């Protein structure tokens, strides 16, 4: 797994893919979808798909890709290495979503929430496998949000494929568990090798699990909050944990639309016509200057 593209630019998203085993083009395949890092307030979220011919599911199971949640980090690394070795029947694709992409999607003017981002990413990966010529006949997806709507949406998008969306799919289907291992290995590596574009001086790598309720993670966030810029882009600004710290520790900033959002009490229309003796602005200049937003400087 070559994460160098992510190391070059970890502010967007990047897609990594194994070669497509020939068998996966010829034979009907089953594909599993899962993600890693959905909950943490730090680091990327990784979506992964893993696929293999239906005829080789037993071999996949033999790899002991049991429920990935029971595996340790080293076991996952070892298993992933084995999957990389067994190139002849297992393929995978990853989509690494940077914390910056997550934050800017969720905090954009047009909100793009995490569930939508997740669903679109999963669908994008399935489409990517199809575009690579993988002969996908069945898809198993670990659910995000309501299974029924998610399943209906995916089924509608991929009518020729049998789609199953289920909670705890990684414990039920080996191919989903394999995808989960790929996602977790990728996320662990991305977090471990994270390059802080902010060239932080004393960044300590010990940020715990990254989950909001982890005291180490909270301590790390408090230590690295910057009053004007908030946090390094390693942090998901859209997480309430991050926002709470910003509200306490960071400086206030007002944006044009935020003023509207704050529901600045709308001025009564009459106030625009009454002579605003009290609020007299500095002497109104000729139209030439007003048009250009220029006023006399009355103080420095």
């Amino acid at each position, binding site marked *: 797994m070559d994460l160098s593209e992510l190391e070059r630019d970890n502010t967007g998203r990047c897609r990594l893919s194994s070669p497509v085993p020939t068998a996966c083009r010829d034979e009907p395949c089953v594909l599993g979808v899962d993600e890693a890092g959905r909950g943490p307030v730090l680091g990327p979220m990784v979506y992964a798909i893993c696929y293999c011919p239906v005829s080789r599911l037993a071999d996949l199971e033999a790899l002991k890709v049991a429920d990935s949640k029971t595996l340790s980090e080293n076991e996952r690394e070892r298993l992933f290495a084995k999957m990389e070795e067994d190139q002849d029947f297992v393929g995978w694709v990853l989509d690494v979503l940077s914390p910056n992409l997550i934050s800017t999607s969720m905090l954009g003017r047009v909100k793009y929430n995490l569930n939508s981002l997740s669903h679109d990413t999963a669908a994008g990966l399935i489409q990517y496998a199809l575009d690579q010529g993988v002969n996908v006949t069945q898809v198993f997806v670990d659910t995000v949000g309501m299974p029924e709507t998610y399943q209906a949406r995916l089924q509608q998008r991929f009518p020729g494929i049998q789609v199953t969306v289920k909670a705890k799919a990684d414990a039920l289907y080996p191919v989903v568990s394999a995808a989960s291992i790929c996602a977790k290995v990728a996320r662990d590596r991305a977090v471990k090798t994270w390059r802080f574009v902010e060239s932080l001086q004393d960044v300590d790598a010990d940020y715990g699990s990254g989950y909001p309720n982890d005291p180490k993670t909270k301590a790390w966030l408090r230590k690295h909050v910057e009053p*004007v810029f908030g946090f390094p882009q390693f942090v998901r600004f859209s997480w309430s944990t991050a926002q709470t710290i910003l509200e306490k520790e960071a400086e206030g900033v*007002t*944006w*044009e639309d935020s*003023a509207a959002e704050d529901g600045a009490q709308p001025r009564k229309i009459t106030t625009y016509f009454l002579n605003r003796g009290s609020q007299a602005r*500095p*002497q109104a*200049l*000729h*139209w*030439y*200057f007003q*048009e*250009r*937003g*220029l*006023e*006399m*400087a*009355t*103080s*420095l």
Partner: protein
Amino acid sequence: APQHVFLLPEYLKDASEKMKGGLMFVKLANPCSGEGAIYLFNMNLQQLFEIKVFKEKYHSWFINQSVQSGGLLHFATPMDPLFLLLHYLIKAGKEGKYQPLDQVVVDDVFPNCILLLKLPDLEKLLHHVTEEKEINNKKYYRYSREKTLRWLEKKVNQTVVSLKANNVIVGARVQSATFFSGDQASSDKEEDYVRYAHGLISDYIPKELSDELSTY
């Protein structure tokens, strides 16, 4: 300390380096309203600049390794000091008598007005707006309404030329200041230009003189 961002003519840069206090920001009476406004003196070249500020909400500056709230952008524009002197001459003119300049240009609210007396070719300037007398080698001045209106008429005409040269929209029609179609100049009547120029000059003279100029 607060940091300010200025747009200045390039040659002023070395003025501030060449001489400590080469550039001085002072508060003087704005000749139209009489209220305080900031002006800039370049002590080297004895030149006066008015300071205008672009002020729009929701802005800040990053200046090197700091953030400056407000995001104001100040402009320094060369200004004819006679407008500021005129403010004092008109005030003194009401007594109708000839007076030495250093008794006219005094202001306990804006004491820095005496810097105006240091400007070069002051006498040449005053010639445009005053009658003068010389007694025992000392010059005495009295505000002259006629000469001032003639001088202001020249200012208006120069401004008309500049408005045309800079494609400034002067028409009464409502349209964006930045869009102009090729045949703009022809469609705006001469009258529009003169009125617009009078309006601009009126930002620099007292209201009653503006009315007199308009009639004139």
